[in-house]
């Protein structure tokens, strides 16, 4: 069993606290993605798990064993770095076999493990090349190969796809997912890209300013964000948020003169005069006649289009509500001119209401 447990883990740099006592349990074989904006403490957390940063407080356990003060080599982990960190003076074969050579494994075992990893990652033709002779994607694969050769308990990935171009990133994302399905080890993966987090993770850990904001499956984070930060960080395009004030018990008057009914889920949880943030995703605001026919609570709105972004199977429509850019999605698109006014259907039961003061979701 190689679960990873973080209890009240703290990291201080001088007087600055980078990680504020986080608690996180990662199960055996789970693919957990730490995601958040720059400086949120995700890489620091990963480096603390790796043993590359000392922890200032709390406890880290890998496979039930507290590793707080153990050096990286004693933790049986592998790490893939953002800049690959391949050994430039060694060939691909030597890079792959380095950890086993250090562990004084016998040559037959090294050759077998290296060949196996090379086979999994399609590196067989590159074995005698030096890192400088490889493309970005190939270097990334060698870095992954180096990680799997030693059969670690836990794989750590520190923004491994950040340096690749968009196409290669998508390709490598699939390879990483395949690799996880093949080897089944516990993976802790750090990224600032929410798409990577959504597509790869069994569970996402969303971080901000050294705190964990929300932990859950990608769909949990997407469908039930705990606050406005989670709502805007996860999902592309980000959730539309419009300020509003509750009027009576059934209506929210939005900025810009629009008003919408309070979704039935949160009816009774808001009070008259409460300042709120009304949130909905582009998928839940669609032009009438170009939407998904779905049962549920709906509300019609009339909005003027300011910009369109045709994506082929769908078109993103941009409208302006009291200075807030609101995005809607149009299925089976037809050409739309900026300035055109269209009738939209808002899926009320999929909308979110956040308390404006605390930014927390109001949920029954």
């Amino acid at each position, binding site marked *: 069993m190689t679960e990873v447990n973080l209890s009240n883990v703290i990291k201080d740099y001088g007087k600055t606290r980078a990680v504020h006592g986080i608690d996180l349990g990662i199960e055996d074989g789970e693919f957990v993605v730490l995601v958040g904006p720059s400086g949120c403490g995700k890489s620091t957390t990963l480096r603390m798990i*790796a043993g590359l940063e000392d922890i200032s407080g709390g406890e880290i356990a890998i496979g039930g064993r507290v590793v707080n003060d153990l050096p990286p*080599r004693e933790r049986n982990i592998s790490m893939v770095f953002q800049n690959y960190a391949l050994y430039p003076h060694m060939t691909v074969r030597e890079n792959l076999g380095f950890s086993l050579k250090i562990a004084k494994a016998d040559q037959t075992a090294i050759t077998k493990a290296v060949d196996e990893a090379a086979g999994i990652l399609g590196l067989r033709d590159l074995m005698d090349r030096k890192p400088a002779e490889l493309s970005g994607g190939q*270097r990334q694969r060698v870095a992954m190969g180096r990680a799997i050769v030693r059969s670690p308990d836990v794989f750590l990935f520190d923004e491994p796809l950040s340096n690749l171009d968009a196409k290669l990133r998508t390709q490598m994302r699939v390879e990483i997912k395949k690799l996880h399905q093949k080897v089944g080890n516990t993976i802790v993966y750090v990224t600032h890209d929410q798409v990577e987090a959504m597509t790869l993770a069994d569970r996402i850990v969303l971080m901000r300013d050294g705190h964990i904001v929300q932990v859950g499956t990608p769909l949990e984070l997407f469908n039930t964000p705990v606050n406005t930060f989670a709502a805007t960080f996860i999902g592309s395009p980000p959730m539309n948020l419009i300020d509003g004030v509750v009027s009576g018990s059934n209506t929210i008057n939005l900025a810009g003169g629009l008003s919408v009914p309070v979704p039935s889920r949160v009816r009774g949880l808001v009070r008259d005069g409460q300042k709120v943030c009304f949130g909905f995703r582009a998928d839940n605001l669609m032009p009438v006649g170009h939407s998904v026919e779905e049962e549920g609570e709906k509300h019609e709105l009339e909005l003027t289009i300011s910009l369109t972004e045709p994506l082929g199977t769908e078109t993103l429509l941009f409208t302006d509500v009291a200075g807030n850019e609101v995005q809607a999605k149009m299925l089976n698109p037809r050409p739309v001119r900026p300035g055109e006014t269209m009738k939209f259907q808002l899926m009320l039961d999929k909308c979110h209401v956040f308390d404006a003061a605390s930014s927390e979701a109001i949920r029954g």
Partner: protein
Amino acid sequence: MDRNQTYRNRKRALNAVHFVALFITMAIICIPGLWIVLNSFRPTVEIMAKPPVWTPSFTLEHYRNMFGGAGEGGVPVFSYFRNSLIVSVVSTTIAILIGMSGGYAFARYRFPGKAGYFVGLMLFRAVPGVALSLPLFIVFARVGIIDTHFGLILAYVAMNVPFTIWLTDGFFRQIPKELHEAAEIDGCTRWQAFWRVEFPVARSGVASAAIFAFLTSWNEFALASQLTRSVGSKTMPVGLLDFTAEFTINWGGMCALAVLMIIPALVLTFLVQKHLIAGLTFGGVKG
């Protein structure tokens, strides 16, 4: 069309100016060396001839005399060579070991007063060696290490360490810290990570530092002339003085010994030049 012609002509003229400037610079650098080599093979009368003899004759007389007996203009070349070699090799090795450790520490670790130490080392390097010769002479004489290999080695190590630290610090800084982190995760101790990963990657820098340290020791005259006096410890640059008498200078002999001095330096530079080619780190991390 005319404008194109004007720019083309300007480019040609600039290229020509560059070429001439480079030629003059190279001539200034190379001609003294060439003068030494040529004169070591010319009879003394030709060296001193006025007007100069433009079609030189060839003789090995100076080399023969140099290796000959004391009365025939000979000097203890082998002793000087041995002294130079011992002092340069040992002082370079020690300076590199200390300097590399220091450079690594400056590049990788944070410690209080780091910037101050670094500036202090550089300032120490700025003091001219000859200014130190008198105090060193007095201290060495008191301690009893004057006119010994050990004394000269000590002085050269002190002279070379700051420069070596400065040079290797720059090279280690270029190596991403992720390389040693990756090595540590792969099972290395900090020491193994250094020797197996960082040192091989930085070896071009270390080789450059070694060459500079070696050449500094090999060619140093000011300190050596004060701190050595017997055949048992005099180095080759000091040995050159053997060719000067009260009223005459044996230019031919001096040039011959100078050529012998240049050869090991050339050979060493040639041997390690492939390590000097930087760029070994490219490719290991995203470029």
